């Protein structure tokens, strides 16, 4: 049996990794609803500034993208991740779990209630500008999309190891902006709109 020689570069070894698939249209609402509030965990209130983080998801032609699943992962108000890899995790806010889910309605609108994150610190001391991680799953996406949300309280010129990788002209698109129209229940609102494809496209990262 003769086969073409297989490339054996470690980075691209023909892996056994299972193939991703689209989430499709029928991810149960019951898996999402009630998971978009990160400001409370097991009966405790999260420390820090509670905010609404909301916006719309649109696709090519500025058409709203309904029925997408958004997942958020972020550190607490002090920039600590609730995870053993964070050297400061013993001091993580017991009222903050750091993970949440939201879905877009037919108008493409989503909304999280969360905490304004603090700067996180790498084990080597490098500071990461305050941010949250966002994953987007939808019909038509056979792989997830991942991006990072920064907040307009921070300068767009911030020296962040991830932001630095984004072309300068596209950096403003990664910033959630304070938006009074989103304020509710005494909490300030931050708008983060996502353009999946087309003019003003949101920068997404290699996954």
């Amino acid at each position, binding site marked *: 049996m003769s086969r073409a020689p297989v490339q054996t570069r470690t*980075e691209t070894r023909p*892996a056994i990794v299972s193939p991703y698939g689209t989430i*499709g249209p029928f991810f149960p609402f019951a898996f999402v609803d009630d998971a978009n509030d990160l400001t409370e965990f097991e009966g405790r209130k999260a420390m820090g500034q509670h905010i609404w983080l909301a916006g719309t998801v649109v696709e090519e032609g500025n058409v709203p993208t309904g029925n997408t699943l958004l997942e958020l992962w972020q550190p607490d108000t002090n920039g600590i991740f609730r995870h053993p890899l964070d050297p400061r995790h013993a001091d993580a806010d017991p009222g903050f779990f750091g993970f949440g889910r939201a879905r877009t309605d037919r108008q493409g609108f989503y909304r999280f209630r969360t905490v304004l994150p603090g700067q996180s610190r790498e084990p080597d001391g490098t500071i990461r500008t305050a941010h949250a991680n966002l994953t987007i799953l939808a019909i038509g996406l056979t792989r*997830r999309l991942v991006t990072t949300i920064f907040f307009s309280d921070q300068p767009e010129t911030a020296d962040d190891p991830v932001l630095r990788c984004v072309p300068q002209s596209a950096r403003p698109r990664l910033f959630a902006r304070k938006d009074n129209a989103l304020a509710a229940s005494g909490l300030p609102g931050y708008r983060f709109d996502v353009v999946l494809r087309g003019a003003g496209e949101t920068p997404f990262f290699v996954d």
Partner: protein
Amino acid sequence: MLIHFETEASPGVRQYLPYDDRTQTLRQIKDYPRSFTRVPAQPLIDRPLTLSELTGPTEIERRLPTGNADFSCLVPGGPRALGQFMTVAGRITDEDGAPLAGALIEIWQANASGKYIHEYDSHQAPLDPNFIGQGRFLTDAEGGYQFRTIKPGGYPVGSNDWWWRPPHIHFSIFGMSWMDRFITQIFFPGEPLNEADLLLNGIPDPEARQRVMFEPLPTKVTKTLNILEFRRDFVLRGKSKTPELL
């Protein structure tokens, strides 16, 4: 891809390489329209992996509560849903073959008539009062999982008659970190609809395609039940150690 800090200094840091496209589903699939309006046109940006990406929710069942793993009836011992009773078992490992214990699995699927319990499912097929078809559970210490259910039916996409989805079950898995969050759908071998399915055949590599197929085990026949048994293992991205430099 850069790892932002030394692995020696931080034991437990895992290595995540980008998905190898050759083992994955195409990002855009001909005749799958949304893939042309939703997949970004700009190239994806490479960036270092920091704590933020290398961590992720732990004990996620404290946020997303688990239930039982028998979807074939509403309550244990209650009337069974219509359709062919079946079981699925498997194991979740990382790229080193190390088991992922405590991984959260979410399952959702159509009933035997090809109908989902979902506001957006417009298929003219009946719901089954004894079938929910969704649930969550955790892998055990060896990364193993199992659940019981009813074999799902195929169904047309939207109001189209030109694309019928073959029977399949959706899996959503929370692995060790933000990097190995995983979603896929698993198909049944030998289904005629498999031949024409855009999503299944959107995996160009035949070997990779096998990794989204249930492996049939011999059907179990008891005095009261005829049980289809299937197996499906998953390998999530991620390695626990740095490869030796040659």
